[in-house]
């Protein structure tokens, strides 16, 4: 779950990470003017969207007076950036910057541990710094079990030649950021740029936070405090109606997962699942030249009602010609129950399951019963002797 910049900053502010003066979000030009009046100096106004490229699109403007700030806010609020309407405008004091830094904490998939990354070249893509200027970047993994100490932060920052009071001030911020990351189930806590002002103070000029979706439950208190609805799902773009409807299907009852969908513009609807299996199957469909209409998660023994509602949703999506029902080998999801749900969904949508279901490949518990149902409705199915890749190929072949 991605946070807006103003939410990230509220979180950082809670922990004492220094922010620019003001740093409040305005929903109207008048509110922006009022915040600028409070700041009583030059301000920067930033569109609050969950996408990059704000500067280029005109979503970041500067103003000297409250009246100018209100006018700038009006322009920003009317601007759509990469399809995103702004949630508001962040208004903060402009700061005289001496140097920009990068500080981030994220997950290191190779070492399977959090990693802190620090660079004295902030403001630009950290991947680019790593590639072109590796001597300007320092990284350090840390444990999820033990506290992140100030000493660890100091060692990391000093490793690229920073010393004196800069080192002391940065140490505090870095150790705090690691704490924010660990305390709240984050997958990313990033300050870019972290800036040093001419008077030696440091400020978080822009912040990014991603929270693990599964942490939303344990972090309900924090989310409420930040004004975020814990049920809100956020991606790099606003969810489509199809995706919202999918989430509603999943919320129908607590049994299993069915309805976690992401929308694409293809013609093959996917009812796929089993953790990494769904990613593999999605990729396999693409590899065979198929055009998925959605990415989907189903598993953990959803009820017939849930699987049925998901199937109906996918079939109702414009352009969907057939659906493929596929999973890895499953032990915790009953094949017969999924078969019932999917077939019911197809029938209730007014189609013939034999024609609408391109392939059914869910090997696992109660598969013999499931196969009886599939045979009864003339649906092509296969067991585990047919690989996921091959099953995906069969589904794609049926689309031609």
């Amino acid at each position, binding site marked *: 779950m991605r946070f807006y910049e103003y939410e990230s900053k509220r979180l950082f502010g809670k922990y004492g990470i220094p922010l620019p003066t003001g740093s409040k979000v305005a929903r109207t030009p008048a509110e922006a003017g009022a915040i600028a009046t409070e700041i009583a100096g030059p301000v920067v106004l930033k569109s609050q969207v969950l996408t990059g490229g704000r500067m280029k699109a005109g979503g970041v403007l500067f103003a000297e007076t409250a009246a100018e700030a209100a006018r700038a806010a009006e322009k920003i609020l009317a601007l759509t950036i990469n399809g995103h309407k702004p949630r508001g405008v962040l208004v903060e004091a402009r700061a005289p910057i001496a140097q920009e830094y990068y500080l981030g904490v994220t997950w290191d998939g190779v070492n399977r541990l959090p990693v802190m990354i620090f660079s004295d070249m902030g403001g630009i893509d950290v991947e680019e710094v790593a590639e072109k200027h590796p001597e300007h970047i320092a990284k350090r993994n840390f444990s999820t079990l033990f506290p992140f100490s100030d000493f660890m932060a100091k060692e990391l920052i000093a490793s690229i030649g920073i010393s004196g009071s800069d080192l002391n001030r940065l140490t505090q911020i870095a150790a705090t950021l690691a704490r924010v990351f660990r305390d709240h189930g984050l997958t990313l806590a990033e300050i870019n740029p972290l800036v040093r002002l001419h008077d030696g103070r440091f400020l978080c000029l822009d912040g990014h936070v991603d929270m693990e979706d599964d942490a939303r439950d344990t972090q309900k208190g924090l989310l409420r405090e930040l004004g975020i609805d814990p049920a809100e799902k956020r991606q790099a773009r606003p969810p489509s109606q199809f995706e919202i409807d999918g989430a509603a299907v999943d919320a129908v009852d607590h049994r299993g997962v069915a309805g976690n969908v992401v929308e694409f513009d293809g013609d093959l609807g996917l009812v796929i699942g089993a953790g990494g299996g769904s990613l593999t199957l999605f990729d396999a469909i693409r590899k065979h030249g198929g055009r998925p209409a959605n990415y989907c998660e189903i598993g953990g023994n959803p*009820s017939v009602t849930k699987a049925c509602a998901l199937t109906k949703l996918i079939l109702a999506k414009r352009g969907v010609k057939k659906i493929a029902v596929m999973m890895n080998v499953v032990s915790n999801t009953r094949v*017969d129950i999924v078969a019932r749900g999917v*077939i*019911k969904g197809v029938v209730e949508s007014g189609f013939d399951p034999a024609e609408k279901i391109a392939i059914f490949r869910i090997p696992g518990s109660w598969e013999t019963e499931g196969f*009886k149902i599939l045979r009864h*409705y003339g649906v092509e199915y296969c067991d585990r002797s047919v690989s996921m890749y091959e099953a995906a190929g069969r589904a794609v072949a049926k689309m031609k």
Partner: protein
Amino acid sequence: MALFINVEVDAAVARDGELVKKLIEVCPVNIFATGSGGALQIVEPNLDECTLCELCLNAAPPGTVRVVKLYGDKEVLTRKA
């Protein structure tokens, strides 16, 4: 309308308050409920959720509750005497 499962209960069981209570209690997917006058009611929209657990068969006298699969060879599940 159920596509996959039907549940049949003998009239004597459906009128027996104690057995009705037991059936409602054991079914994990709420296929049984109390209808008018305390008689057993089958909750049609839930029939296809039947997990084939056979708990209802064991809760009533042999042969009085039958779970019918409406697919394949139309197998009937019932408790043997």
